[in-house]
């Protein structure tokens, strides 16, 4: 039985004065899932997280944890625990006393507290640092203490507010792996807030992409990458060429769209109709750049700029009426095109998708 709880967020709205921070945000998280809220600063992801934790009361809608409506319950009465962005470790307590705080609030007997704290510290690999003061620890160690302090209370939902944003890259990647392993082992539901899409893609079972206070799309990492629902998601996750085009017709399973004189192919998803305006999204790594081969229906362009970054060659291409980016993998022998050279540009029809304009 998974220790985690289901989370059901139902159309929550929160306003601060005249500013609407989040509007009609709804999603569900299954028990034991690693769910990320992803978006740029100000998109409302932290407000949503704080609403789940009880640090903000919502103006409309409700939040159910394990089927129980939370209403206006304060944080100390919810079965959630939070790892704060700035960690919020108590500077006047030792590592042990910080981790023990929640257990002592529940009036557990001292031997029990000692045992559980030792266990929690061991789990985050800080076994013998219990007596240290917070100020004596490194950033990574403090991060683990914050984690231990939250997890020792065995919350059914763990909330993490950009916990790794202050750490350097290597440490961040290492802790990402540890967090994922920890979550799998515990079975706790994790709600993870981040603005780093690479982090979200790597760690999550599912992702909720937010922008401007609204939820744009919820899906697995593969889904949001392969089948973005909106233009924003297409542009925010990974790199993308986004071209506004008009649907011309259908070609078997594929879609043909037109921009000026150029014809762009994409996967057909079923909601498109002739004459519809939409945005074609093709990722740079799927754009092929080859010597012009004289095909009439292909795109011909000119290399505007080229950047070599070891494993990839990035081209900025000017095609009549468009500008496209390509990222071609480079191995020994891959042809390199010069600036100003004419090239053929194309992609397989099913490597591109469309999103509503």
């Amino acid at each position, binding site marked *: 039985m998974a220790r985690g709880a289901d989370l059901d967020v139902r159309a929550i709205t929160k306003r601060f004065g005249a500013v609407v921070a989040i509007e009609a945000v709804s999603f569900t998280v299954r028990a034991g899932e690693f769910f990320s809220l992803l978006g740029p600063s100000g998109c409302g992801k932290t407000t949503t997280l704080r609403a789940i934790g009880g*640090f903000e009361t919502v103006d409309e809608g409700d939040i159910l944890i394990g089927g129980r409506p939370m209403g206006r319950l304060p*944080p*100390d009465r919810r079965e*959630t625990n*939070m790892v*704060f962005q700035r960690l*919020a470790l108590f500077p*006047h307590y030792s590592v042990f006393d910080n981790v023990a*705080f929640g257990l002592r*609030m529940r009036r557990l007997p001292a031997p029990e507290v000692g045992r559980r704290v030792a266990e929690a510290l061991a789990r985050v690999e800080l076994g013998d640092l219990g007596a240290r003061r917070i100020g004596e620890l490194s950033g990574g160690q403090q991060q683990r203490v914050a984690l231990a302090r939250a997890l020792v209370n065995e919350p059914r939902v763990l909330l993490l507010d950009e916990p790794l944003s202050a750490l350097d890259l290597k440490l961040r990647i290492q802790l990402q792996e540890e967090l994922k392993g920890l979550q799998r082992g515990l079975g706790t539901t994790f709600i993870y807030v981040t603005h780093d899409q690479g982090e979200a893609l790597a760690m999550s079972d599912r992702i909720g992409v937010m922008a401007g206070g609204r939820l744009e799309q919820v899906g697995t990492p593969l889904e949001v990458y392969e089948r973005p629902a909106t233009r924003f998601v297409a542009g925010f996750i990974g790199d993308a060429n986004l071209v506004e085009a008009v649907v011309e017709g259908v070609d078997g399973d594929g879609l043909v769209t037109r921009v000026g004189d150029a014809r762009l192919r994409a996967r057909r998803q079923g909601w498109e109709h002739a004459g519809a305006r939409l945005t074609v999204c093709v990722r740079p790594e799927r754009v092929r750049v080859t010597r012009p081969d004289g095909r009439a229906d292909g795109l011909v362009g000119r290399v505007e700029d080229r950047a070599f970054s070891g494993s990839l060659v990035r081209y900025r291409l000017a095609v009549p009426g468009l500008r496209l980016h390509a990222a071609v993998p480079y191995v020994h022998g891959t042809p390199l095109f010069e600036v100003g050279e004419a090239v053929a540009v194309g992609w397989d029809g099913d490597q591109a998708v469309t999103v509503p304009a």
Partner: protein
Amino acid sequence: MRVRGWLAAGLLGPVLALTAALYVVPLGVYLVNGFHRFKDGRILRVWTLDTYAAFLTDPFSYKIVSTSLLLAGIVTALALLMGYPLAYALHTRVRSARARGVLAVVLFCPLMTSVVVRTYGWLILLANQGLVNTTLLRLRLIDEPVRLLFNMQGVVISLTHIMLPFAILPIYSVLGRLDPSLKEAARDLGAGPWAAFWRVTLPLTLPGVASGGVICFTLALSAFVTPQLLGGGRVQVLPLTVYNSTVEINWPEGAVTSLALLALSILAVWAVNRVLRRLPTVA
């Protein structure tokens, strides 16, 4: 821009000359009198420790010192007890810039009006027919007017009022520097509002309480106007004794008493600094 060498000396010169001539010298000249003797209305410039001996062996001296310490202690305790909730209320309830401006004026105006004016206000308030007694009588909490003037009670009440802003400001300042997520973390970990305050907010704001307390204590210790006007001669504190000695041209006695006053102030500041150094800081 570095300030070094001749430039530093030049910039410091005037202030050092000023303080040497007008601060160190007068203090020194005065306190030296403690080593002289006063007899038959004249100061005898002989070097002696008799005046100190007289002070230390006179039981009345200890009464004055204990009254001073008691007054300062009670006033400080009251100012902190009233000041902390007020500082806390200001911190949590007053958010807009305009409200903050208004409250700054409210807090600062009393500070900026003369202590004579404020003491006079209490003179009126605490009189037998003043507002306090009239209100208590009307509410039937007392049968006859309570004597609040020309005794210790009156001095305590009005001195606490004068010290209150000095207690509020440092506490308010420390509350402002407290990381708000610390309180949220405590709540998140299961602490109710009172437990979160008691275990997290209060311990981390103790430096503000300590510095407010030491300011109140030293100011209350050296208060003159209020005990003089509202004490009715019954509140004998060190500054009054110094005044009386000076009026009688008994500078030696005044100097010894002044040194006692100074010593107590410095001791208080030193003691609180020792404690402050061992408290954890907020940031």
